[in-house]
């Protein structure tokens, strides 16, 4: 380091061309002055990006009808959100992308044959009842898209369980109705010799338009985990519990209960495990809580699928576990404060 200068300034530090900040434009606020660029809107966009493969697979297998259903759900969700903002005299919140994401998730949880007005009612239930009546984003105890779907299932059971045959890459305007493998298994009409787990994995089976392709959902789910937008503990505990229970049940009684692979690759399990049970607002705060939550979802899904009248139980199980989140959070706290234990001995 050089010695401090001992001569007076040669040039006055106020020379003509020197530009100093305009004090009147200075913002004064408390620290921190930097933020993680990942804000709410970016999170919502990234989750929608992770749903892109499932959305595209829906269009590939079910044709342009899939886009029609998703479009109505997203449009209605945004419209209802804006309407509620106005009604409740709150600032417009459609810019954060959360309403659009709820609409997209609702659309992916419906059959491609769903009429537009049913989509709109579902979006109104999801955004109006499940989200805005509770106070908007962050205050809803139940997953809005699932409230929309289950509300529709109760109100319009026939429409919600009308499934169409897949027509890969044919983009047909009309479709042939059929039953889902889970429904056929329940009725004992599943032609087991025609079951192809490869098709099930890729998405070539009847069902909700966003739930059929496990490959696309896995891709999106892994993206969410890699981006740390969801915690892997929730889908892992969910899928693991379902595999465990259905595996044991099948081993005990193969004629009565379908196999582990069948249960993993049919229905809405992947969509539920990676995208619905992991909703930040309605799932537990901690990783340990996430494991309990995922396992609980798995147990309830299996109970419904194996022993109840409904062929599928993913939506119900997640909504039931949503109700338990405050208790799980009380049970699984963030842990001991750093240094809260007694001083560790040192030599």
């Amino acid at each position, binding site marked *: 380091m050089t010695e401090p200068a001992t001569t007076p300034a040669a040039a006055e530090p106020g020379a003509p061309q020197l530009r100093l900040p305009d004090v009147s434009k200075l913002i004064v*606020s408390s620290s921190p*002055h*930097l933020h993680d660029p990942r804000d709410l809107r970016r999170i919502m966009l990234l989750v929608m990006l992770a749903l892109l493969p499932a959305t595209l697979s829906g269009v590939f297998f079910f044709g342009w009808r899939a886009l029609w259903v998703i479009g109505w759900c997203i449009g209605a969700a945004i419209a209802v959100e804006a309407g509620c903002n106005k009604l409740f005299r709150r600032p417009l919140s459609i810019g954060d992308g959360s309403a659009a994401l709820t609409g997209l998730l609702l659309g992916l949880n419906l059959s491609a044959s769903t009429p537009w007005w049913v989509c709109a009612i579902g979006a109104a239930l999801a955004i109006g009842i499940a989200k805005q009546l509770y106070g908007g984003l962050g205050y809803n105890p139940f997953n809005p898209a699932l409230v929309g779907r289950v509300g529709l299932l109760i109100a319009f059971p026939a429409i919600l369980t009308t499934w169409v045959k897949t027509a890969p890459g044919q983009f047909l305007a009309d479709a042939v109705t059929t039953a889902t493998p889970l429904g056929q298994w329940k009725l004992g009409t599943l032609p087991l010799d025609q079951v192809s787990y490869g098709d099930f994995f890729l998405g070539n089976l009847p069902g909700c338009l966003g739930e059929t392709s496990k490959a696309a959902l896995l891709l999106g789910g892994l993206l969410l985990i890699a981006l740390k937008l969801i915690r892997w503990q929730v889908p892992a505990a969910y899928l693991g519990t379902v595999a465990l229970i259905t595996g044991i049940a099948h081993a005990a009684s193969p004629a009565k209960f379908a196999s582990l692979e069948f249960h993993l690759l049919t229905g809405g399990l992947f969509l539920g495990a990676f995208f619905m049970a992991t909703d930040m607002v309605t799932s537990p705060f901690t990783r340990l809580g996430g494991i309990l939550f995922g396992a609980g979802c798995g147990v309830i899904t299996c109970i419904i699928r194996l022993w109840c009248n409904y062929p599928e139980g993913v939506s119900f199980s997640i909504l039931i576990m949503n109700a338990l989140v405050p208790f799980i959070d009380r049970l699984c706290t963030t842990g001991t404060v750093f240094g809260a234990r007694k001083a560790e001995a040192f030599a």
Partner: protein
Amino acid sequence: MSKLCRFPGGVHPLYDGKDLSAGEAVRCPPLLPAYIVPLQQHLGQPGEWVVKKGDTVKKGQLLAKATGLLCVPLHAPTSGEIAAITTCPGPAGTHVPAVELRGDGRDEAAATLEPIPAWESAAPETLRDRVRDAGIVGMGGASFPTHVKLSPPPNKRIDTIILNGVECEPFLTADDRLEIEATDAVLTGARIFQRILGAARVVVAIEHNKPDSIRAMRDRAAAFGVEVATLPVRYPQGAEKQLIYAVAGRKVPAGALPMEVGCLVQNVGTAAATAAAVLQGQPLIDRVTTITGRPVANPGNWRLRIGTPLKDALAFAGGVTGEVAKILFGGPMMGMAQSSLDVPVLKNTSGILLLGPGEVSPYTSGPCIRCGACADACPMRLNPSDLGIYIENERFAEAEAASAMDCIECGACAFACPTRRPLVQHLRRAKAEIAANRRAAAAAAAAKK
């Protein structure tokens, strides 16, 4: 070299801005015609002026004397005349007592303190008194009187001294440059601390993003019997409790001081100032400060006299080239925003950071979406989400039960929050409320007796 530990939480700003000034060697700016020197530049009770208007002083001459244990004296940054005993805007936004010193341009030094060349055999008390008499405080930002930290009660033994060269605040490079250019001074200061405390181990801690500092320290450390610990880049790596855990693997108990686990942490700048005070008898009248940010014409590092007004400091860096939205004293994570260009540089001004309009985003206090980013970021393993909700609803007792007082106010939670909730701001408010409640309760208990 013992194993390094990883403290919980922490955040990584994507761009640390250190490239703007890290390559710039420390420059010594020309003398200014006038300096504004605030009376209180340390944590504790204020000193007392020993000069009056019209007095002539020499460089390093006493301006204010210490009034108690938690106080340090203040010295003149140059020779000249006391133009006024006045007030000036301080970095915290209030007006504070200060002297205006009109320089005579001669920069004549006063012989206030005798050098102690034989410090290695000097009594610890002599060295500790020198640290106090030179007006040395923690120069990393806390400005806690250093001699107090060097005076543990007799039943507390300090066995490890950690020199904090981490500089985990983005944009700041003053400590980095000091480690490179004044390696021996930093290490000598560390040895003086060791002499005072009789500690067995001295470690210099530096983050991986300062390869030149690490090389410089590694080259010289062995000659001084000092270890070099290189730490991963993670804010707040330089926070006292986190640094002690990283380097020594010891957790400072909640509410306790580092001496509880036998550790002492000192900033590298404080060590260099201590070496100058002991070897040259030089009181603390200048420091290395980074002047940086995208709007700054020539970002770099300067050895600024204490009392250099902000506008003159900016002039040394060539002024600004773009719009300025924020001026910070300190780094972007914990620095204080300024509203006047007349604020003077203090003993703890590690950096002057200017941010442009595009680099500043407002707090919106959106809803908590329970994403958990704040809890993942908290280096104290608190739950800022719950705490923020308690405090918004004035539920201070619950905030206290949820360990609000353990918050170190690093701001990692507010940095991480995707809905821009002012979490650390809530916690600062709660800590003040809880402390006031505790004082009131203690006063009430005392009144009963």
